[in-house]
């Protein structure tokens, strides 16, 4: 399954004539990524490369990570289309240039440091690697699988809780709005602190009432959350060559330091 954002991105590029339609192998790779394991391996590589590499190696790592993102989780690249991301990164380089050591030139009250610019560029490259990897992983791996991972980490029944919470959202929002209007109409907002406490009690009580109804319905159907198997990552053997190849690339990149 290709995530919606990814197909949107592919569509955007293809409309501009800069992107060929993905081949069958690429589609298969992205389908595997949506299962979680490929995406997790690429994410781990990107994270390690971002943290361990410096200087030229970092630039090479950025190139490798962006290529991986294009192949495995293109939705992660959407973050690069946001103006806010670029404003933040440009500000980072600018401030690093200004506060860096041994300024080569002066511009009014500010010194321009080449060393600071290079340090800023390093921070930007590291940030790009991590942001694209994190956004790619989060947009590729579905929430229920993340819930499944947390469940295996010791938070039992979390998958069930997330499902129930998702279904309760509209009910709870409606009861919150009703409580707010009831309090406002009865002039309860004249004393804001007391009003907030009463609103909290009303909201929590109505949420617990919703929860009681769900419990009744679940018990009537003899539902047992502990009997359900959480959705989990399936680690396949075919992931091993990819992991090994990325490990070799990582060693080569970090070796560039010495």
């Amino acid at each position, binding site marked *: 399954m290709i995530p919606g954002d990814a197909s949107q991105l592919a569509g955007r590029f293809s409309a501009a004539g800069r992107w060929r339609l993905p081949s069958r192998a690429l589609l298969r790779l992205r389908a595997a990524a949506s299962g979680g394991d490929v995406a997790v391996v690429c994410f781990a590589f990107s994270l390690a490369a971002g943290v361990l590499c410096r200087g030229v190696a970092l630039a090479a790592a950025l190139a490798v990570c962006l290529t991986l993102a294009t192949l495995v989780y293109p939705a992660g690249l959407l973050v690069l289309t946001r103006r806010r991301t670029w404003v933040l990164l440009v500000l980072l380089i600018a401030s690093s240039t200004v506060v860096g050591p041994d300024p080569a030139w002066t511009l009014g009250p500010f010194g321009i440091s080449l060393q600071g610019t290079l340090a800023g560029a390093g921070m930007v490259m590291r940030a790009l690697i991590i942001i694209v990897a994190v956004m790619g992983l989060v947009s590729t791996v579905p929430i229920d699988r993340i819930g499944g991972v947390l469940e295996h980490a010791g*938070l039992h029944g979390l998958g069930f809780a*997330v499902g129930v919470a998702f279904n309760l959202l509209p009910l709870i929002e409606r009861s*919150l709005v009703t409580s707010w209007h009831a309090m406002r109409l009865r002039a309860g907002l004249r004393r804001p602190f007391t009003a907030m406490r009463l609103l909290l009690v009303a909201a929590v009580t109505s949420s617990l009432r919703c929860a009681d109804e769900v419990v009744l319905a679940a018990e009537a159907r003899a539902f047992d959350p502990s009997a359900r198997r959480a959705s989990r990552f399936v680690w396949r053997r075919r992931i091993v060559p990819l992991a090994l190849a990325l490990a070799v690339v990582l060693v080569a990149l970090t070796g560039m330091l010495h």
Partner: protein
Amino acid sequence: MRLSLKELTIVAALGALWGSVEMTLGAFLHVLHVPFTGAVLGSIGICIALVGRVVVPRPGSTLSIAVVAALLKALSIGGVVLSPMIAIVMEGLLADAVLSLGGRPRRTTFALAGAAAVTWNTLHMVLIQGLVFGAGVIRMYMIMVQKAAALLHIPTASVVAVLIVLVAGHVVAGALAGLVAWQAGRSVVARRALVEIDAGEPS
């Protein structure tokens, strides 16, 4: 930690309540660029999670409520918002750690748990940026504070004092949230007990 069906559903309902506050009020405050949005939302959220701890007095229940709220936050209008999700989980984790280490639930431990959770918001931005951009960004901020103080002709100590006041404000807001949660939680439990007695099924 294994919660029963009833406890899990309460965790889900309160997680949904925190999540809906984050998605509605949170989006509204962010759009208006209201200052200290994190502190306001953190106080409300941790208040709900601490009420949950009174209703489900088990270690890990506060963290579970926070995790549910964080996962629901992923459904926000703006798409996946990772930084607030991490902040929500960290707030829940800190509050849960304080309550679990504090032993028997008391007013003081709830105030401390609220204070610890909301104070995280002051450190959150710096730590997250440190993780993403590296330790260099922290050094850069320190130099910028010194240069700004020199440019405005104010002593660096004054900047530090402003930061201390900021942290103290968060601590007070969090402690208040904890105290409100303690009081509200006890009245919710009392009401539920009355309802159960009326229905002929005392807990």
